[in-house]
């Protein structure tokens, strides 16, 4: 059984440990700054970026408002195209369905395309318990799986590992799961990628069953879409006899044409590319091309809970690009694992409590894992207002039905304090994150003890630069 986030300490404690790990901080900083820079350049070249964001947000809002109708449409179209649709209320049910489908094929080793949802529901462990070995095929996911590690980012899950750590994992573990790493493997990234190519090629050619997620599901046509870089996705989606796609119910877009919005935004936001090297779309099954059997498992697992929250439901617009974590000064200092979930960073700070309910101390600590600087609001391609949701969730923990009660302000300061106690570093991180948005949206009032807090922090306009940046530029207003 591989590692899980089960029993993970609450954010303040996990963050303290993470911040003390200098290697980790160096790795995370290098990675987030690299992607950040590439993203900014490619967003800059689109004069219509804000228009794309408007369309992307509105399309998802439409889907969420009529999700029942859209899902029925998905079911009808996928079935008509030769697929079989299954529904799962929670993680256990989804895992049971996939386990049964794999068992029915008689296979005991399957290949997987990196999927956040299957990480969320712990599918690999559930399959392992049933005697089925599920091998991750994405390079980063392979590094995490072989290293018995936990993911720390939604796009680049092994971003906390450097090349020599990766080399050691490959040399130690590859032979135990198939073709060993080549003799004399160095830590050159090209050589490491080649080792992964050889190790995986054998598995792709053998595999009869593949499991994937999906970036998008088109209701109008029943088409699924997977975006990836390495070709491991294409291998899984094309070479297996049976394909099982496990997809969250919020992944729907209304029409085929709507993909033009998201496919122009996803790679730009996620990796700073115009498009990822490979995008695959398929509708049911096709005679003589690809898997002859296709199953779609639609999973709720808390999404309807999030949907019922009028402020929080916007988190379900998320397309898992990771831009919010790449820009986040808190994430930059703690890395992803401190959030105790496969969804770290700002999206994790809001999505986990929305999906699970803030009923345990770990989940309840997440809305406090933020300085409310608002940089995530600015980069989000689907215009999630993270700071609105964070404040709403804090008020839930302080005032609402949550089983865990925080003395709100105190807990907030403690959580952020763990990463903020080095003044100059913190200032640099916030400045690097770009302009700082309003801490609290105009007109938003929180109940009870937080009322006064919002009053004092409600800002009339979004400042174009942080106070400290302004101070430095103007020498304290003298210029």
């Amino acid at each position, binding site marked *: 059984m591989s590692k899980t986030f089960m029993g993970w300490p609450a954010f303040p404690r996990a963050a303290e440990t993470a911040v003390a790990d200098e290697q980790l901080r160096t790795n995370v900083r290098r990675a987030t700054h690299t992607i950040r820079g590439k993203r900014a350049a490619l967003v800059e070249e689109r004069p219509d970026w804000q228009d794309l964001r408007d369309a992307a947000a509105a399309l998802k809002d439409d889907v969420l408002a009529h999700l029942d109708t859209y899902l029925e449409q998905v079911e009808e179209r996928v079935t008509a195209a030769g697929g079989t649709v299954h529904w799962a209320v929670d993680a256990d049910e989804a895992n049971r369905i996939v386990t049964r489908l794999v068992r029915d094929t008689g296979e005991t080793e399957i290949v997987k395309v990196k999927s956040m949802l299957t990480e969320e529901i712990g599918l690999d462990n559930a399959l392992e318990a049933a005697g089925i070995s599920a091998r991750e095929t994405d390079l980063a996911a392979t590094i995490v799986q072989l290293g018995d590690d936990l993911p720390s980012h939604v796009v680049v899950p092994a971003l906390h590992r450097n090349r020599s750590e990766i080399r050691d994992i490959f040399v130690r573990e590859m032979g135990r799961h198939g073709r060993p790493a080549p003799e004399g493997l160095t830590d050159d990234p090209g050589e490491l990628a080649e080792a992964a190519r050889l190790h995986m090629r054998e598995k792709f050619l053998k595999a009869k069953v593949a499991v994937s997620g999906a970036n998008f599901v088109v209701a109008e046509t029943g088409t699924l879409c997977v975006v990836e870089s390495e070709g491991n996705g294409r291998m899984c989606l094309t070479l297996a006899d049976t394909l099982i796609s496990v997809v969250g119910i919020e992944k729907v877009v209304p029409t085929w044409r709507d993909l033009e919005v998201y496919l122009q935004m996803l790679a730009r936001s996620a990796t700073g590319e115009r498009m990822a090297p490979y995008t*695959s779309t398929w509708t049911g099954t096709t005679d003589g091309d690809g898997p002859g059997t296709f199953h779609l498992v639609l999973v709720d697992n808390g999404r309807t809970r999030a949907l019922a929250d009028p402020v929080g439901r916007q988190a379900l617009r998320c397309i898992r690009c990771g831009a919010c974590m790449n820009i986040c000064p808190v994430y930059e200092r703690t890395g992803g694992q401190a959030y105790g979930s496969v969804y770290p960073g700002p999206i994790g700070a809001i999505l986990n409590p929305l999906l699970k309910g803030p009923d345990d101390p770990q989940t309840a600590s997440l809305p406090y894992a933020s300085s409310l600087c608002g940089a995530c609001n600015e980069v989000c391609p689907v215009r999630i207002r993270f700071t609105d949701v964070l404040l709403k969730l804090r008020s839930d923990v302080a005032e609402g039905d949550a089983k865990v009660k925080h003395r709100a302000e105190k807990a907030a300061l403690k959580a952020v304090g763990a990463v903020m106690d080095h003044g100059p570093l913190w200032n640099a991180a916030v400045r690097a994150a770009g302009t700082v948005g309003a801490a609290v949206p105009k007109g938003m009032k929180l109940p009870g003890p937080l009322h006064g807090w919002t009053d004092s922090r409600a800002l009339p306009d979004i400042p174009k630069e942080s106070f400290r940046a302004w101070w430095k530029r103007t020498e304290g207003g003298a210029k």
Partner: protein
Amino acid sequence: MNARDTVLSRIRRATADLSGTRTTVPRSYLRHAPTVAPGDREGAVALLVERLEEYGAEVRRTDAPGLPAAVTRALEAARSAVVPDGLPEHWTAGWDGELHRDQPPLTHHQLAAVDAVVTTCAVAVAESGTLVLDGGPGQGRRAPTLLPDLHVCVVREDQVVSALPEAMPRLDPRRPLTWISGPSATADIEMIRVRGVHGPRRLAVLIAP
């Protein structure tokens, strides 16, 4: 209640406050590439070449009579190649390597042992340097464009659009589509771009009228 009914009824309860909501989707984003005027085919082709070269693809523009020679040249390093049904035979007639037709379909192991594949495409998108294959004549099923290490793709100039919104109406989502933007790549190790992981490590694009 089965899972389907449970999920659907939870959704209806969760969105009760939104019933009757009609969301207008603003479509003010560009329908063409920012740097290419609508209808400027030559501008779109030039941008496609630029973007493909940035990805490290080998790009060559040729006239129709020069195409067979360009194919032969692209296949220079390959000893064997597979071609799908519908690829004009004279394109590969001048090449003296070992040519396989994917008819009857080759096994995955056979395909993995072949050096190269030659196909056409359905649409090419200049702004993102993307070739879209839809399984039509000259493109074939998906496995042959995936397992060989070199993909030679022939693009007709009238298949080039400047941006994605112009491509969508030309594509049939009922077909399995593969959108290729440069050769297989990863940046999973310290964000350093490494070309060539699981898909073809070399992509050669021949653009003909």
